[in-house]
């Protein structure tokens, strides 16, 4: 469990026992609240429970794609057809997206919503992952894209819900980076 999930106040602890608040539960509920039904993904270990729960909920149309770029194309088409979507991926998958962000999502003003499970930092064991992680924020910044690194459970719903609404109303993509501080990440012993 991530440090961020440790609750301090007795009231919060009580709420937690009645219905445990998790980062993946927040993602699922926030997607629903914003009527985001289409969720293509390229999986990540950290996203396992989220993906399983989205599959189990008939509200969603969710499926794996062969590449992250493909998923971006699908949700872009769906948006233009009147259906909202979001893409789930990990850091190395984001690294394949510079072309589609610069040639489709941004210039066509498509509110592409991305949840990126962050690998490559805070205990990474694969050198390649740690290197590719360093390309993510420079790419986002070079395209002046909205992005947030989500680290704390108590802030997460606010960030996710507001960012989704902002993406849709401003017709601009957003990347929500799920830090190991929020998710626990993937560690060598797994």
């Amino acid at each position, binding site marked *: 469990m991530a440090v961020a999930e440790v609750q301090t106040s007795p009231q919060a602890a009580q709420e937690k026992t009645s219905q445990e608040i998790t980062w993946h539960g927040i993602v699922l509920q926030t997607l629903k609240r914003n009527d985001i039904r*289409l969720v*293509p993904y390229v999986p990540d270990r950290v996203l396992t429970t989220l993906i399983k729960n989205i599959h189990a909920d008939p509200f969603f*149309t969710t*499926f*794996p*794609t*062969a*590449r992250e*770029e*493909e*998923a*971006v*194309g*699908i*949700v*872009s*088409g*769906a*948006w*233009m*057809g*009147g*259906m909202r*979507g979001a893409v789930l991926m990990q850091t190395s998958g984001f690294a394949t997206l510079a*072309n*589609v962000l*610069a*040639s*489709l999502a941004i*210039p*066509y*003003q*498509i509110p592409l919503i991305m949840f990126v499970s962050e690998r490559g930092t805070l205990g990474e064991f694969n050198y390649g992952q740690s290197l590719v992680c360093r390309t993510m924020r420079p790419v986002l910044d070079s395209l002046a894209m909205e992005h947030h690194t989500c680290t704390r459970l108590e802030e997460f719903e606010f960030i996710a819900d507001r960012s989704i609404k902002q993406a849709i109303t401003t017709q601009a993509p957003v990347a929500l980076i799920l830090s190991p501080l929020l998710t626990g990440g993937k560690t060598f012993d797994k």
Partner: protein
Amino acid sequence: MNTAINLPARNTKVMNRFDLTSRLIKKLEHEEAVVGGIGNTNFDLWAAGHRPQNFYMLGSMGLAFPIALGVALAQPKRRIFALEGDGSLLMQLGSLSTIATLAPKNLTMVVMDNGVYQITGAQPTPAAAVADIVAIAIASGLTNSAWAADEEDFERLIDQSMSAAGPTLIGVRIDDKPGVGTTRRDPVQIRERFMHGMGVREPL
């Protein structure tokens, strides 16, 4: 085995992209969506006569089919056509399996196969001499895939796809002519007009 797979492609007539695109557009009577891939594929779609239901892709090579899949999932009652080049499709072969798995019956895909990257100087694709796009599609799970033997066969396959029980892929062999028009490269207008055409938005 390769020979057997290649035979139908070799026996198909070499046709023309603009002519085939025009034949397709002429058939459309129900505000069907048409997604054109990068370069010549959408240039010829533009040249065949702009309609608000046309979407022109200006980059993101290989994503015509995924974009069309998204539209097809969002609007299951509307027929969606997607036009893609062979070189573009090679960039995103995995998408064929995704489409086969989701199996939207309102999606018709056309692959314009000239074996070259026409727009960059007509260099052959790595697949040109060895691979069969329709065989790849079938092996990817798109069982309703076929080469069009000639223009009449193309029109017949298009008609058939309109009432098919699953997604259809039509391979057409085309010449190495460039597109006959040039799409106005205004991505925001293209997207906005397309959304009007899809009935998702009203003009301001």
